[in-house]
């Protein structure tokens, strides 16, 4: 079970209390009525789905109810950091590097070849 640090409760809580809220730091265009369909599609639907670090919104739905942002590694599922909504993206290079201790399908597949 993952433990996720909630910046509002100031404590690590079980993943059961949280819901994912999709990509973070997506700014709604201020001229939303004027943009083209393609621009709206890019803003509204298209996401990068990266393999590696992703910035996401999470909601502590069965706790304080607050939305916050988190940097998560999509390969190891490790949470690198969490921070309050509205705060800028943290500098992840300043954070301690994550170890590769989590066994992943990709890692095992590589060894089998």
């Amino acid at each position, binding site marked *: *079970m993952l433990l996720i640090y909630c910046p*509002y*409760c*100031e*404590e690590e*809580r*079980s993943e*059961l*209390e949280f819901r994912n809220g999709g990509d973070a730091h997506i700014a709604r265009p201020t001229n939303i009525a004027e943009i083209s369909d393609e621009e709206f599609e890019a803003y509204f639907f298209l996401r990068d789905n990266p393999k590696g670090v992703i910035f996401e919104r999470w909601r502590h739905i*069965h*706790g*304080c*109810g*607050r939305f916050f942002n988190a940097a998560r590694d999509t390969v190891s599922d490790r949470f690198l950091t969490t921070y309050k909504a509205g705060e800028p993206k943290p500098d992840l290079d300043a954070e301690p590097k994550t170890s590769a201790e989590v066994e992943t399908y990709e890692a095992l597949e590589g060894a089998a070849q």
Partner: protein
Amino acid sequence: MADQAIRKAPLAGLRGGSHAAILTPAAPASRISLRAGKDAVPALSAALGVTLPLRPKTSASSGKRHALWLGPDEWLVIDEDDADLMAAAGSSGALHSAVDVSHRNTAIIVSGPGAEVAINSGCPQDLSLGLFPVGACSRTIFGKAEIVLLRTAEDTFRLECWRSFAPFVFGLLSEGAEDAAH
């Protein structure tokens, strides 16, 4: 045809648990779900007669009235004497939102040396005394149901859940209480 509706408490008459963790449905109480900004906290605290806590996972009590921190701008206020909390909050004169949830919630008192174990059968939070001392409270999850926990004594918890989930919560808690006795 019956012409009178009779209000029935969701857990009326139920008893359960084990010698390690006794389960008792709590008496009816009045409750409000209170939302307010920081500016309104002093006025609301004065009007309600209990200081709204501002630290996560803390509560404040004054007699039989309890204010539980649920979020940075959200509290659950419980009055076990069935006082009119809506009127009390309304008399504060401060900007706030109060919703009467007296009949939405029901509560179960879990007491005994195995109370922590019984609740942890369905709840992932660390309830050890160091991290969840007397007076600590938290909204969390129990099985599939959302609950609000308040530790009223070292071996006693007040567990608030929505009335439609009450039979599920009581059933799962009974199983947990039996496990705690082994």
